[in-house]
C-alpha cells in the first residue's frame, strides 16, 4: 500500500489492527475466505493483547513478544497484508474506498471498521501537558515504564478498571499513588456498591490514597512536565506523572461522515446481529460498535471484540451466524481476580453470596426476579457456574442464591 498506488484494493479491508481487527482477519481465513485481506492499523506495531497493558505488561511480568496476538510471520503465511502506522480518515461508501492520512486511497469489497477508540482527554487546563498519560496503547505504556525509575508520585484520574489496575501495579512497583474519582465510589459505572467498597478497601490497604467525589480543576506543570494536580476543593497533589483513565471516545468520525447510522449521542456505530452497519458492505466490530436491539451501549471487552469479529468474518464469507452474546469481563488487581458474567444494566436487586471479608465472594444482579449478571471476586467457581443462570435468566429466590452451601450449578440445574 502506498500513496502513489491508487489501484490498491482488498476484497476484505479491515481498518484497525487491535484485537477485533486482527481477529476478523484470522476468522476470515479460518472460515475459508479466499479473497485478498488488508489489515491496516495506525499503531507502529503488529496486533497485540491490549488488556495486558495495564496489568502484566506494566508490571513487567510479560514482554511485548508475549502479547502479540500472532507472531509476525503468521500474517504473511496466511496472506493477510498487515500495514502498520496508517490512519484512516475517510470512507466513500459509493466508490467503496478508504482514504488515509498519508493520502493513500484503498478500495474494498467488504469493509470491516475496527478502530476502537482513543482515550478521552481530560478537559481542564494543563490536560495536554507532557507527563499526562493514557493507558491504551503500547506506546502509552512504554512512556510510563520508561519513567518509572525516576518518578515517585503518580496521580490517577478515574477510578475505573484502567485506573485501578494501573494503581495496583504502580503501587507494587513502589510509586506513591493517589486515585481521584469524581463519583462517590470507584467502578461506579460497572458495578454495585458492595463491590466498589470492597475494591476501595483493598486499594487503601495497599497504600493507595483514594479521593472520591472530587473533581479536577487543572493540571499544573513547568516547561518540562507535569508537576501537580489541582483538585476542585483547592488542594494540589504533587505529581510526576498523571494517568487519565476516564474512558474512550470511539474513533468513528469517518463512518459518521460517510452516513453510517450511529447511536443518538454518537457513542458507537449501530450494527445488526451480523455486525452490518447501515452502509452496504460495511461492517463494524469491537469497542466502537453498538448492537441494535441490544443493551444500547458499547461493550468494551476482548470477548466482544473476538465474537463480533468472528460473526462479521462469517457474514462476509456468506455464513449467517447471528450474535448471541453473553458478555464477560475480567480485571486483575493485586491478588484479586474479578470476573463478571452478564451485564447488570437495569438491575433492581443484588444478592451477596459469600463475605467480602474473606476476599472471595460474588454479587448477583437480578432484574424483575431474574438473574442477569454476576460479579465474582476470587470466586471462579461462581463465575463459571453462574453463567448458566445468566443465559437462562433464571428466576431464583435471593436466599437460595446467597446460600454458599449450595453450588450455583445445582441451583441452575433446579431452575
Amino acid at each position: 500500500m502506498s500513496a502513489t498506488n491508487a489501484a490498491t484494493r482488498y476484497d476484505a479491508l479491515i481498518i484497525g489492527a487491535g484485537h477485533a481487527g486482527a481477529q476478523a482477519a484470522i476468522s476470515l481465513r479460518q472460515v475459508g475466505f479466499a479473497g485478498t485481506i488488508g489489515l491496516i492499523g495506525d499503531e507502529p506495531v503488529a496486533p497485540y493483547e491490549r488488556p495486558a497493558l495495564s496489568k502484566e505488561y506494566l508490571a513487567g511480568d510479560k514482554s511485548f513478544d508475549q502479547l502479540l496476538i500472532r507472531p509476525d510471520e503468521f500474517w504473511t503465511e496466511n496472506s493477510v497484508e498487515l500495514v502498520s502506522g496508517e490512519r484512516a480518515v475517510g470512507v466513500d461508501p459509493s466508490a467503496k474506498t478508504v482514504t488515509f492520512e498519508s493520502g493513500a486511497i484503498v478500495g474494498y469489497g467488504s469493509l470491516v471498521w475496527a478502530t476502537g477508540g482513543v482515550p478521552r482527554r481530560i478537559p481542564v487546563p494543563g490536560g495536554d501537558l507532557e507527563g499526562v498519560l493514557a493507558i491504551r496503547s503500547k506506546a502509552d505504556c512504554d512512556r510510563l515504564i520508561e519513567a518509572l525509575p525516576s518518578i515517585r508520585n503518580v496521580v490517577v484520574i478515574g477510578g475505573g478498571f484502567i485506573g485501578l489496575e494501573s494503581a495496583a501495579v504502580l503501587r507494587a512497583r513502589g510509586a506513591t499513588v493517589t486515585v481521584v474519582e469524581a463519583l462517590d465510589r470507584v467502578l461506579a459505572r460497572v458495578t454495585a456498591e458492595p463491590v466498589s467498597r470492597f475494591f476501595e478497601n483493598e486499594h487503601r490497604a495497599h497504600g493507595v490514597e483514594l479521593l472520591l467525589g472530587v473533581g479536577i480543576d487543572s493540571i499544573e506543570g513547568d516547561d518540562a512536565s507535569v508537576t501537580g494536580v489541582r483538585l476542585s476543593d483547592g488542594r494540589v497533589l504533587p505529581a510526576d506523572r498523571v494517568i487519565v483513565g476516564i474512558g474512550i471516545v470511539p474513533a468513528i468520525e469517518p463512518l459518521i461522515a460517510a452516513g453510517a447510522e450511529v447511536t443518538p449521542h454518537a457513542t458507537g456505530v449501530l450494527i445488526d446481529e451480523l455486525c452490518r452497519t447501515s452502509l452496504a458492505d460495511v461492517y463494524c466490530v469491537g469497542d466502537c460498535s453498538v448492537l441494535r436491539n441490544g443493551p444500547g451501549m458499547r461493550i468494551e471487552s476482548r470477548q466482544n471484540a473476538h465474537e463480533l469479529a468472528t460473526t462479521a468474518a462469517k457474514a462476509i464469507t456468506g455464513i449467517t451466524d447471528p450474535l448471541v452474546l453473553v458478555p464477560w469481563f475480567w480485571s486483575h488487581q493485586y491478588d484479586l481476580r474479578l470476573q463478571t458474567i452478564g451485564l447488570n444494566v437495569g438491575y433492581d436487586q443484588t444478592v451477596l453470596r459469600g463475605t467480602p471479608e474473606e476476599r472471595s465472594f460474588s454479587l448477583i444482579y437480578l432484574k424483575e426476579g431474574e438473574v442477569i449478571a454476576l460479579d465474582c471476586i476470587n470466586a471462579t467457581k461462581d463465575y463459571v457456574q453462574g453463567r448458566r443462570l445468566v443465559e437462562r435468566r433464571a428466576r431464583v429466590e435471593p436466599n437460595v442464591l446467597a446460600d454458599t452451601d449450595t453450588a450455583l450449578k445445582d441451583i441452575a440445574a433446579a431452575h
Partner: protein
Amino acid sequence: MKFTVTTREGEARDVEARDGLSLMQNIRNSGIEELHAICGGSLSCATCHVYVERVPAGVALPEKSRDERDLLEASDFLEDNSRLSCQLTCRPELDGLRVTIAPED
C-alpha cells in the same frame, strides 16, 4: 522443543514450539485456529482446553491452580488429563509432549 497436537478432526500435527510462550500460544501460532483462547491466557475462560496424552518421562507438569480446576470443571468434556493450555509454558524438557484439543463446549 517439539510437541504433537491432535485437532478435533483427528489430524496430528508436529509443532516446533517457541520456548517461553504458553502451549496455547504455540498451538494457535501454528495455524490451528479451533483453539479459541478467547481470554488470551488470563484464566477467565476455558476455550483452550486440551487433553495431555503424553508427558516426557521424568517430567511433571505444574499442578493446576484452583482457578484452572474451577474453569475446567465447567466443561462438559472434563477428563483426568484435562488442562488449560494457556497455563502450560513450553520449555525444552517438555520436548515430545502430546496433546489433543478437547471438544468445544
